[in-house]
């Protein structure tokens, strides 16, 4: 069991808390850098897919996990990122410019959503973001001069200073680099005053407000940043799919993103990553399972969303803290070995907060 002595505020917000962090994250970095040398090309592609999902997951986590604002329409921000990026590239803009611009387009959309959304709470916000994603989907379908509607758009490979990244391992390193930047950015954001304000809003809007946190301002920032990161993920997803059409960004994608942050564990960046591994790996697991399932079940087209639903139900009912929460529990069990108490992680008594006032 390790005891950390903190003597200053800077000690409290350090990213690398002790030597173990350097060791394990170093090992992880080495493994990820070496992965394309060892793995077959198919798995390298799958890993880049997981990275893209993780980027979007971190984006959504900033909003749901850290600011406490529900969004059921984050697939729309991915669509905006993907289409902006592709449109600019086909117009001759280099990838290094079009990629951040894709994020900025999503950021602008995020702020546009935040303006009405700031007046809503809880359930209204969830429904409004759902409506937003439906509207974006229709716009993508109908704005044929830019998006070519249901015909879809082919996406050229990302071009890095005159060198097109066509091979799987090149794209893998690109996704990895973006993911590392996004994760570091998010971790730094959370320990900055802005991030603290977001967390305060999540825990109690009223107390945050009375401590002088400008709700409208920080909610808008949270929406904008979340949309920015998600837009970047969308641009990468476009390159991964090599072909984008409105079907790729429908409500199922939004729900998958939601599943990711919930299954991974709300309120931690680790959670977004674990969730991405889970969601990215589940189709593979289902594909493997299909061989063992009876034919009639295995051939059902709706199997995957159904399994997603089932997993989400089980997680919400039995492990509300998600995969990361389970990991923390296991760690705590060994840290305090004979003294672990179940109640450590017990949800504090909180009744459903009523929104009604009479």
């Amino acid at each position, binding site marked *: 069991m390790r005891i950390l002595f903190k003597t200053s505020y800077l000690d409290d917000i350090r990213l690398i808390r002790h030597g173990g962090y350097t060791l394990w994250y170093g090992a992880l970095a080495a493994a990820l850098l070496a992965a394309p040398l060892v793995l077959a090309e198919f798995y390298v592609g799958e890993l880049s897919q997981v990275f893209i999902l993780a980027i979007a997951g971190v984006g959504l986590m900033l909003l749901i996990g850290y600011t406490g604002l529900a969004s059921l329409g984050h697939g729309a921000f991915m669509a905006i990122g993907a289409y902006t990026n592709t449109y600019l590239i086909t117009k001759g803009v280099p990838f290094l410019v079009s990629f951040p611009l894709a994020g900025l387009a999503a950021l602008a959309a995020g702020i546009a959503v935040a303006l009405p959304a700031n007046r809503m709470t809880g359930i209204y916000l969830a429904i409004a973001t759902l409506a937003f994603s*439906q509207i974006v989907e229709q716009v993508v379908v109908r704005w044929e001069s830019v998006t070519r509607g249901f015909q879809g758009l082919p996406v050229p490979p990302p071009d890095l200073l005159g060198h097109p990244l066509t091979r799987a391992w090149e794209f893998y390193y690109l996704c990895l680099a973006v993911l590392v930047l996004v994760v570091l950015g998010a971790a730094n954001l959370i320990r900055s005053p802005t991030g603290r304000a977001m967390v305060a809003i999540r825990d109690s809007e009223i107390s945050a407000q009375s401590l002088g946190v400008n709700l409208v301002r920080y909610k808008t920032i949270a929406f904008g940043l979340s949309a920015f990161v998600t837009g970047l993920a969308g641009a990468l997803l476009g390159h991964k799919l090599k072909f984008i059409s409105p079907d790729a960004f429908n409500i199922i994608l939004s729900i998958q993103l939601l599943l990711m942050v919930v299954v991974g564990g709300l309120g931690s960046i680790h959670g977004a990553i674990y969730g991405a591994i889970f969601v990215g790996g589940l189709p593979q697991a289902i594909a493997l399972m299909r061989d063992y399932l009876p034919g009639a079940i295995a051939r*059902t087209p*709706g199997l995957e969303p159904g399994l997603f*639903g089932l997993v*989400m*139900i089980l997680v919400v009912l039995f492990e509300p803290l998600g995969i990361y929460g389970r990991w923390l529990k296991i760690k705590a069990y060994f840290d305090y070995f004979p003294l672990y108490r179940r109640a450590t992680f017990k949800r504090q008594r909180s009744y*459903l907060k009523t929104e009604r*006032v009479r």
Partner: protein
Amino acid sequence: MELAQLIVGGIAQGCVYGLIALGFVLIYKATEMVNFAQGDLMMLGAFLALTFIGTMGLDYWLGFLLAALCMGLLGYLLDALVLRRIIGQPQFAIVILTISLGFLFRSAAGFIWGHETQVFETPFTNRIIALGELVLPLESISMIAGTVVLAGLLYLFFNYTRIGNAMQAASQNQLAAYYMGIPVKRINSLIWALSAIVATIAGVLLSPVSLVDPSIGFLGIKAFAAAVVGGFGSLAGTVLGGLIVGISETLAGRYLPPGFKEIVAYLIMLGVLLVRPQGLFSTIQRKKV
């Protein structure tokens, strides 16, 4: 004349939205849960009716009744076995849980009944009534009449029966209702049952028009717009919200460029939320410290 024709069609469509939205609002008023699986409950109800009427060849009304009863049982069990367990968790957990239930239902329906669009014979299919120059399909009339009758029955139920009064009391103040000897848990499960029955009625009335397949549950998203316009508060407001959405959607499909029909419901909803974040006919206010 064309306008009148369109408006009648819009009213019929709006009635269905109103009925689905009624299911949301019943549950929301009672338990403050928003049931994102309401559209999928409607889909399951329609499929059950299809099984009873189309496959087993029962009489339409008998099959209707059986489907409604089965769905009522399902609704009761859903609350008693699944949803009651997460009371006390953040509202977000409930949103996720009901969304996942919807996915599970859709997948199960696809597994049991297949993903093809199906249809069953009703007494209203493909028949028309001519009122002067107005030519009205009987399906539309049945939707409007069904909604009116159901709304009337619900009004009587909530105001003149013991159990309806108990439901109102429980949704106004659970603790006080419990002290008065009302079995709040069972009442909440019964409200889920009632809401599933309303969803079934919506599904069966809609089935001649939209046909039946596992994805008709997505109609539930539009019904949200209706519920929000109505303000999640009063039952009458909800049906009115449904009518507003239904009529404007039909008119937009005729007079506006393509694409607007699909999104006009959301545009109205966002507009309402901008002007009155609590809905047009709402009773909800911001919490004060």
